[in-house]
């Protein structure tokens, strides 16, 4: 399979994307049905060619085609086949190809499931997706071609970064991109809405499930990345507020605000301009993330090789897409405050406060991430902004949200009900305080841990109280609509997450120790006995593997095998041993042998106990589950009811 076919496929895809992007917009503007009808077939065609191109690259990797530069740079003869597939997206060019592939997956799904949308609107949505594809395809073809040849062809390639040779790492980019790219759907809906000048926001209902699913994928992607960093990088941490981590967190925060704002706009018709603006921001931040990772303007552990030419291209693309949409917003966003009024004490208000805090938090992360650049621009000297900054301000900003969270479901739209609220406050509050006091004895009075317990109980009891209320008041079958069940799951997830973070941060014990075979160290409430190290081998690495036996009060708990691997090209990688548990993780990393020649002797090791660390990702997964559940709500599936039919007619006559 010649790689040039892949290049050709991309060019054809670009042409189809141009058709998909431009013709339906003209058609929608002129009322030309033939032009509008180009959208779906063009999208399908583009998807076929992009998939083909992606397939060619996968094929090249699987068949060791080192005449392709990208394959030679990222794989070698010993790399196992599953990592060769992962190597497709292991570096810049291939990851962009993955991006455009996923964009096509979303577009095809949209084309398939939007048959019942008004034609004018649907063609605009698909056209916007097409225009985005044009940008990325052009970027790939002109600056980042993965199919470039390397001649003469080397006998063997370099290697995929060992840090990427891990299941978590192969999973993280596709899932993360599915989330990032998924925000393009909400974006496309918003732009189509602006272009059509719709005064009604019926389209928000259609946008909701897509946005929820994208957000859920992004949540999963971030969780996967965090879990992988913990398991693979050996520093026992799970989040570093690194610029590229922040680049995924900002769209997540804005997406979070968006899914709540969409709820308000869909049900009450209010906050339309804000919902549109958030839709634009969420995708803009996704694009911004792409820019930050590849332009080299920020020091980051993740950054792909920087090249000013690529940086300029993406910046230009960013300017056109985001600048253009913000300009469109300035011109066409609804000016009249529409929708139903609401009192100060109402569900709308707490959701609005939540939105405010999410938006400020996203702005804070952006400020901190970009401040070193501002420092260079204004000649303030080189400044670092790291975890102490973000880790201080973020919890501070989220505190009001956590406090208000239990009340949200109990408040009605438009006008809240006070007596219910007082009950919730008392019950959840007392439960939280009581548990906090009990916890204080177990954690030696550590404030962070106590706060974690209190937050979890506060939120969990709030969720429980509402679930009980619905059970009592609503007949079977209508108690927990998917949208509400999703909300309850996600809110519970927030509590689990907070507990995981605060408890693991305050209760973890870490120590660097020197151990000879047979010696024992006591860490936390566990005894770690080092049983020496020996040589072992893997498919493309050799390792020194240690054996550590862990006991607690004499009872055996685990036998752990930390490794120090040396890969084919000389890279050294520490594979930490992690004994996972629901209530604690045990973690051992191998350092250096005390005597470099004698690996069977004493070694330096780093030993950790990390209570409740899995709750961090458990909470994240609950949030993700909540997002998916919410999207599955029956109400979002379009039925041909009379109202919708009427809606269609109105849309079309207005177009």
């Amino acid at each position, binding site marked *: 399979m010649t790689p040039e076919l892949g290049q050709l496929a991309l060019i054809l895809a670009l042409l189809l994307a141009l058709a998909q992007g431009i013709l339906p917009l003209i058609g929608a503007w002129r009322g030309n049905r033939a032009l509008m009808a180009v959208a779906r077939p063009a999208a399908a065609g583009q998807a076929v060619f992009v998939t083909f191109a992606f397939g060619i690259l996968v094929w090249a990797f699987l068949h060791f085609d080192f005449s392709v530069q990208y394959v030679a740079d990222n794989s070698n003869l010993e790399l196992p086949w599953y990592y060769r597939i992962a190597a497709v997206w292991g570096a810049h060019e291939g990851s962009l190809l993955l991006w455009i592939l996923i964009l096509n997956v979303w577009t095809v799904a949209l084309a398939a499931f939007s048959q019942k949308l008004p034609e004018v609107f649907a063609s605009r949505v698909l056209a916007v997706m097409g225009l985005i594809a044009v940008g990325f395809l052009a970027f790939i073809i002109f600056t980042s071609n993965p199919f470039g040849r390397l001649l003469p062809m080397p006998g063997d390639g370099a290697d995929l970064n060992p*840090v990427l040779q891990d299941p978590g790492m192969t999973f993280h980019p596709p899932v993360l991109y599915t989330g990032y790219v998924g925000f393009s759907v909400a974006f496309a809906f918003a732009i189509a809405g602006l272009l059509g000048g719709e005064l009604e926001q019926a389209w928000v209902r259609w946008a909701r499930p897509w946005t929820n699913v994208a957000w859920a994928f992004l949540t999963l992607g971030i969780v996967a990345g965090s879990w992988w960093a913990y398991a693979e990088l050996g520093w026992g941490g799970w989040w570093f507020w690194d610029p590229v981590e922040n680049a995924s967190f900002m769209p997540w925060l804005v997406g979070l605000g968006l899914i709540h704002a969409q709820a308000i706009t869909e049900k009450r018709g209010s906050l339309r301009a804000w919902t549109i603006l958030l839709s634009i921001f969420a995708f803009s931040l996704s694009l911004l993330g792409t820019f930050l990772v590849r332009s080299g303007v920020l020091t980051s*552990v993740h950054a792909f090789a920087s090249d000013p030419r690529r940086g300029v291209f993406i910046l230009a693309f960013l300017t056109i897409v985001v600048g253009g949409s913000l300009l469109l917003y300035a011109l066409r966003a609804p000016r009249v405050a529409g929708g139903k009024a609401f009192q100060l004490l109402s569900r709308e208000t707490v959701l609005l406060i939540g939105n405010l805090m999410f938006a400020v938090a996203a702005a804070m992360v952006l400020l901190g991430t970009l401040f070193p650049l501002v420092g260079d621009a204004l000649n303030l000297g080189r400044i670092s*902004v790291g975890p102490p900054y973000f880790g201080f301000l973020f919890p501070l900003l989220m505190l009001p949200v956590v406090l208000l969270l239990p009340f949200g479901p109990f408040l009605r739209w438009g006008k809240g009900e006070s007596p219910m609220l007082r009950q919730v406050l008392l019950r959840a509050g007392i439960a939280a305080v009581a548990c906090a006091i009990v916890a204080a004895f177990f954690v030696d009075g550590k404030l962070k841990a106590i706060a974690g317990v209190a937050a979890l109980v506060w939120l969990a009891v709030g969720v429980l109280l509402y679930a009980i209320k619905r059970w009592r008041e609503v007949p079977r079958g209508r108690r927990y609509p998917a949208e509400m069940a999703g909300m309850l799951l996600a809110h519970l997830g927030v509590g689990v997450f907070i507990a995981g973070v605060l408890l693991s941060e305050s209760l973890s014990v870490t120590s660097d120790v020197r151990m000879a075979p047979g010696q024992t160290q006591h860490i936390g409430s566990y005894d770690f006995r080092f049983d020496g190290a020996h040589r072992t081998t893997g498919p493309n690495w050799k390792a020194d593997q240690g054996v550590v036996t862990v006991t607690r009060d004499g009872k055996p708990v685990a036998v752990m095998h930390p490794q*120090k691997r040396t890969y084919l090209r000389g890279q050294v990688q*520490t594979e930490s041993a992690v004994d996972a548990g629901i209530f604690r993780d045990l973690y051992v990393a191998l350092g250096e042998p005390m005597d470099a020649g004698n690996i069977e002797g004493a070694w330096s090791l780093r030993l950790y106990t990390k209570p409740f660390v899995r709750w961090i990702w458990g909470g994240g997964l609950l949030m993700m589950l909540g997002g998916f559940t919410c999207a599955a709500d029956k109400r979002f599936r379009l039925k041909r009811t009379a109202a919708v039919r009427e809606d269609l007619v109105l849309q079309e006559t207005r177009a």
Partner: protein
Amino acid sequence: MIRFNHRGSPLAGDALAMKNITTGASPASGLLRVIFMAMLVFAGAVHAQAIEPMPFANHAQELRFQHLTQQLRCPMCQNETLADSNAPIARDLRNQIFKLMQQGRSDDEIRQYLVARYSDYILYNPPLKAGTVLLWFGPLLILLGGGGVVLVALRKRRRDGVEATTVGESADNGEDW
């Protein structure tokens, strides 16, 4: 996958020696491949941890050391903390910090010692000075500004929210969901 670093440091099993980087100019696209491959090689070596048992007097001292070094940037491997970096300068600085702790210096004095030699860049916790006022108070300003907008919107809503002509299924059929 770390940023390209032109300069050398003595790594055991010198991975860098295997790559022939021949220029110190900023990466031109022609050299990008070589440099990128070097990054892959170099990055792998860097990800071994900086595990170095030190003779702490007690666990509290060890905690203090961990806390200090986790808030400092490694000047060489700038994506890592001083606690985690395997670069020789990181080892030297960790030993130096330990020495200073033994001499009875406070956390602030140790930080000052490092800043005097390596500039504010070495601190992950940006100091509050004239240049960083915008950084530390910016979020508060944004919160106040946003809060103001929300308050105005709330007041407007209460008074004159228009009944929207929502075509299609309305959410106002008595159910909150």
